């Protein structure tokens, strides 16, 4: 890894050297881009994978089960083998879109301890900043404000990277994968996990994590429950949970209290799009990330996005695939830079039962023979069917699924032929 702080103009700048940024860099290089710079705010590349020490990564990409650090190291190595430079401890503060003149670059204002503040000019930029956790403040849990209340990812970092114990008796709010993984991790480290509490009537984690993280260690999961009070002076002493009704309102009289010193919150992830907004890209309120076409290009030509900054993925393997698509997209943009084509685009609309789709559209002329459309359903459903309809309501294709769940992103393969007849298609869960 080189830390050349002299070079201030590049063809492709990538913001973030986590799994998305690394895979995008490798794919862009393999598609012919040679002048790439990765910008990473942490002291090393790899992103959040470095603290995800559990196994289960890489089954799609590598055909084997790896831990997070192993998955990251393989991609760090791939980037290093290609000589792709990474600037570490480098924060991108702002991205200015190109001035409205032929060939004008993006301007990235960066800050770091090695060089102070600098401006990097790039012909194309890939956004790969990832996401951050929702906090206690975001969900408004009432009560005291003692220490011992952590987001699950912060606790994961403290335990797995820094070697601290976060507490001895824990309640976990939220049954997303990070909450489930941390229930097992705390138990293995000798803490007592009293319960996992989930607001929704179903878990938002993968079924296998319920099995291997909760059931293996006899940790109870309370669905349709939430934390309604926190007590403690200095340190957390007691957490109250209550059952909620169909409108997710706590039901009086159902309170249960747990004496504990730790509360972990695994209550959602938010794509981190401050830079995207500063650059002026259009945002999809459903995903919290930018609107993109199939090549992961945002509404600003030459500005791409991939990974959790675009939409929160449940598998890093999907992030890798998407980032490779963005890397190839940026390479194609750079190869044809200067030519502007007003291409006809085909849009994808989330219909009944579908939360969002990514991509949001595809350029008809540039569409590959087949490509993947990712989406999440709103409700769990066994034996579900997702249908794709054209603007007249004609069914183009049906995909049968043994189980649909909001926690499990669906990936549907769409061919160029399927979008030949119209300019807008809706995806729905069949009634």
């Amino acid at each position: 890894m080189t830390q050349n702080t002299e070079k201030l103009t590049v063809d492709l700048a990538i913001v973030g050297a986590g799994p998305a940024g690394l895979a995008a860099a490798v794919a862009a290089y393999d598609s012919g881009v040679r002048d790439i710079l990765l910008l990473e705010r942490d002291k090393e590349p790899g992103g959040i994978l470095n603290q995800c020490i559990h196994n289960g990564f890489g089954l799609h990409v590598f055909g084997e089960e790896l831990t997070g650090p192993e998955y990251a190291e393989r991609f760090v190595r791939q980037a290093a083998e290609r000589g792709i430079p990474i600037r570490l401890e480098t924060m991108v503060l702002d991205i200015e879109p190109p001035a409205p003149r032929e060939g004008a670059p993006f301007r990235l204002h960066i800050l770091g301890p090695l060089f102070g503040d600098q401006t990097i000019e790039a012909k194309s930029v890939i956004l790969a900043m990832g996401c951050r956790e929702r906090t206690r403040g975001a969900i408004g849990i009432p009560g005291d404000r003692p220490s011992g209340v952590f987001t699950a990812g912060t606790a994961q970092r403290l335990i797995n990277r820094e070697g601290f114990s976060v507490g001895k008796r824990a309640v976990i709010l939220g049954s997303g994968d990070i909450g489930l993984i941390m229930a097992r991790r705390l138990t293995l480290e000798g803490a007592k996990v009293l319960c996992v509490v989930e607001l929704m009537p179903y878990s938002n984690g993968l079924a296998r994590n319920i099995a291997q993280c909760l059931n293996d260690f006899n940790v109870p999961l309370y669905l349709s429950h939430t934390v309604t009070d926190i007590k403690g002076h200095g340190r957390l002493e007691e957490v109250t949970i209550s059952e909620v009704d169909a409108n997710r309102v706590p039901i009086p009289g159902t309170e249960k209290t747990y004496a504990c010193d730790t509360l972990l919150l695994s209550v959602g992830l938010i794509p981190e799009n401050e830079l995207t907004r500063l650059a002026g890209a259009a945002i999809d309120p459903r995903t919290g990330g930018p609107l993109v076409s199939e090549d992961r290009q945002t509404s600003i030509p030459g500005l791409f996005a991939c990974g959790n900054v675009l939409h929160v993925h449940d598998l890093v393997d999907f992030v890798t695939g998407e980032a490779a698509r963005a890397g190839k997209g940026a390479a194609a943009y750079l190869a044809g830079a200067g030519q502007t084509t007003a291409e006809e685009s085909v849009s994808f609309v989330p219909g009944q039962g579908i939360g969002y789709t990514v991509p949001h559209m595809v350029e008809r002329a540039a569409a590959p023979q087949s490509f993947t459309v990712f989406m999440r359903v709103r409700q769990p459903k066994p034996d579900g069917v997702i249908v794709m309809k054209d603007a007249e309501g004609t069914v183009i294709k049906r995909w049968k699924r043994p189980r649909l769940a909001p926690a499990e992103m669906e990936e549907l393969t769409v061919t160029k032929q399927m979008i030949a007849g119209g300019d807008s298609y809706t995806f729905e869960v069949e009634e």
Partner: protein
Amino acid sequence: MVTFTCITCPRGCRLEVDPEKKTVAGNLCPRGETYGLAEACHPVRVLTSTVAVRTADGAPFPEMLPVRTQTAIPKGLLSPAMDEIRAITVTLPVKMGDVLKENIAGSAVALIASRSLG
């Protein structure tokens, strides 16, 4: 008949296993059959954790090293394996895949480093 959620991949198939007849239903791939039969008679898990690190000159290193069992070990050995892992301190440098301890908790499986460090 016993039912399990397959943990081999994120799909999480619901398996129905008959341990007598050694049959598995509900799996969408052959991995599920292997997992289902093993889970019914001899459940195993890959164990991941961290160990403390020292620099080459013996000073404590401010980061933990992630580790894992090379292959899955019997579920009953998770707790004794954790006791052994807690007692390990490794000295830098470490390469991903380095064997840190052979035969962890008598499982005949090695504990290996999940990343390179130092």
